[in-house]
């Protein structure tokens, strides 16, 4: 089966104003299978947006090869671009144009005849809940609506590969959930999706595969499930009924008393909850509520990025 995306030895070097070179991508290799839901994670400045920029021709690569559905961007960029739909991180539409016109115009740029473009524009604006806003100037929309409009604009030519750069940044929780549902629906319909995100929960919920990029290198590329399975610890936050003056000692756990009513406990995966609660009961601690400190992927992400940082420091 043809791969949706095949990146080989992709390098990008920027020159700053002083003429000094800054390496943004150090020759990355990445493949995304057709129908996949793929997350590209990484801290700010890791190279995520540069990679996406090269894919959609907003950034010129220094070297390497990129193929979209088997089409090399150096040989037939127009064809490769026709397979791609892009939702960028920043708003990139004319603020003074009407919502309908923005989506309709984008369809025209992809060579879709006017009648079909009108039908598709209506279809996607309705699906994304923007049909009532169609005659408004884009600047009049809320942040969430602007983001949804960019998704409608990216879908109007019905791409095979949808690339979203931080799609839910600045979107409220309810809307984020509905966008997740929609992206999952698109993926079920057969569209390959690549997203970059800061919300690691988003990657864990939606994506089958995750690549972590840091300092212009892919430091991990595996299924989300196997990545999460590597976690050997879970951090729980316990709210206590009675105040504590001193942190208790619990077997196979790291315990921190964050305030007199709150305990933060790191538990290893082979330590069952029953054992933990047995110990708490033995020490006379009554627990009012319990919650997970953060999502599991986030912990792994931080640890991987920190390991990479230590490695970088050793090299330099």
């Amino acid at each position, binding site marked *: 089966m043809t791969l949706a995306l095949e990146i080989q030895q992709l390098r990008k070097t920027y020159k700053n104003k002083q003429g000094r070179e800054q390496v943004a991508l150090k020759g990355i290799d990445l493949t995304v299978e057709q129908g996949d839901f793929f997350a590209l994670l990484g801290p700010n400045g890791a190279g995520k947006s540069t990679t996406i920029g090269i894919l959609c*021709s*907003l950034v010129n690569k220094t070297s390497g090869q990129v193929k979209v559905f088997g089409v090399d961007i150096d040989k037939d960029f*127009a064809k490769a671009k026709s397979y791609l739909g892009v939702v960028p991180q*920043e708003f*990139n539409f*004319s603020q003074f144009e009407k919502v309908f016109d923005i989506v309709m*115009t984008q369809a025209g*740029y992809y060579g879709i005849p006017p009648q079909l473009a009108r039908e598709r524009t209506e279809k996607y604006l309705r699906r994304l809940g923007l049909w009532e806003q169609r005659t408004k100037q884009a600047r009049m929309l809320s942040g969430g609506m602007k983001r949804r409009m960019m998704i409608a604009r990216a879908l109007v030519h019905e791409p095979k590969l949808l690339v979203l750069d931080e799609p839910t940044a600045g979107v409220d929780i309810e809307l984020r959930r509905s966008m997740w549902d929609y992206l999952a629906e698109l993926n079920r319909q057969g569209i390959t999706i690549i997203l970059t995100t800061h919300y690691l929960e988003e990657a864990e919920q939606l994506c089958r595969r995750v690549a972590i990029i840091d300092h212009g290198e892919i430091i991990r590329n595996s299924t989300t499930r196997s990545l999460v399975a590597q976690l050997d610890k879970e951090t729980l936050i316990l709210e206590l009924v009675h105040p504590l003056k001193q942190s208790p000692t619990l077997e196979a756990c790291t315990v921190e008393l964050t305030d007199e009513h709150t305990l933060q406990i790191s538990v290893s995966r082979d330590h069952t909850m029953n054992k933990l609660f047995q110990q708490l009961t033995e020490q006379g601690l009554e627990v009012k509520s319990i919650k997970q400190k953060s999502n599991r992927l986030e912990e792994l992400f931080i640890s991987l990025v920190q390991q990479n940082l230590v490695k970088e420091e050793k090299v330099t």
Partner: protein
Amino acid sequence: MKNNVNLIALQTLVTKEIRRFMRIWVQTLIPPAITMILYFVIFGHLVGRRIGIMGGVDYMQYIVPGLIMMSVITNAYSNVVSSFYSGKFQHNIEELLVAPISSWVIITGYVLGGVTRGLLVGAIVTILSLFFTQLHIEHFGITFMILLLTSILFSLGGFINAVYANSFDDISIVPTFVLTPLTYLGGVFYSMDLLPSIWQKISLLNPIVYMINGFRYGILGVSDVRPEIALLVVFLFAMGLLGWAWYLLSKGIGLRS
């Protein structure tokens, strides 16, 4: 298939460009009309009565072709420079860059937008001039060719300026320091015969001299330069700028990092 995509994309871009300047018609179509009425009244009517004949025709008639050309130049240029630069500023130029279309579609689309506005304003100014003087076109072919090539040339100029521009100040530098002086020194208001011979020779280095005189020849049959030379100069300048614009866009200079 590919040509069909490019053709639809071109129609879309031209429609968008025309919609843009029509939406803000108070800023794009009315000001040149007001400016030109002032020129007709002050220079043509009040001052012109005292000047009498210039280049063998009434002074009012003499300045009308230059003023029409001046408004075509200014509007073709400013349409492309402001539209393309605001596309860069708001990043909506990316809508075009991610699309599967050739560089020539982008250049042609913006140029046709600039040409349309230039010609539309030119037509408005021509209609207004009929309230002040009588015009009949002596050589229709040359008039049309010069008008078309000049508006293409300055649309390309606006495009190149916008590609290099990094701020709104950068898009006013060329019109203020290059375009306006060259237009005023291009013989809109005077015949080159009035200049000392050294300045007549220096004036021949100004491309706008050829546009205004070529156009004046087309309308009045009066010119300081030979019309075929005027056409050739304008054509060569337009081709030069076309090559420059295509090079910038295909290399992504000022657009892609």
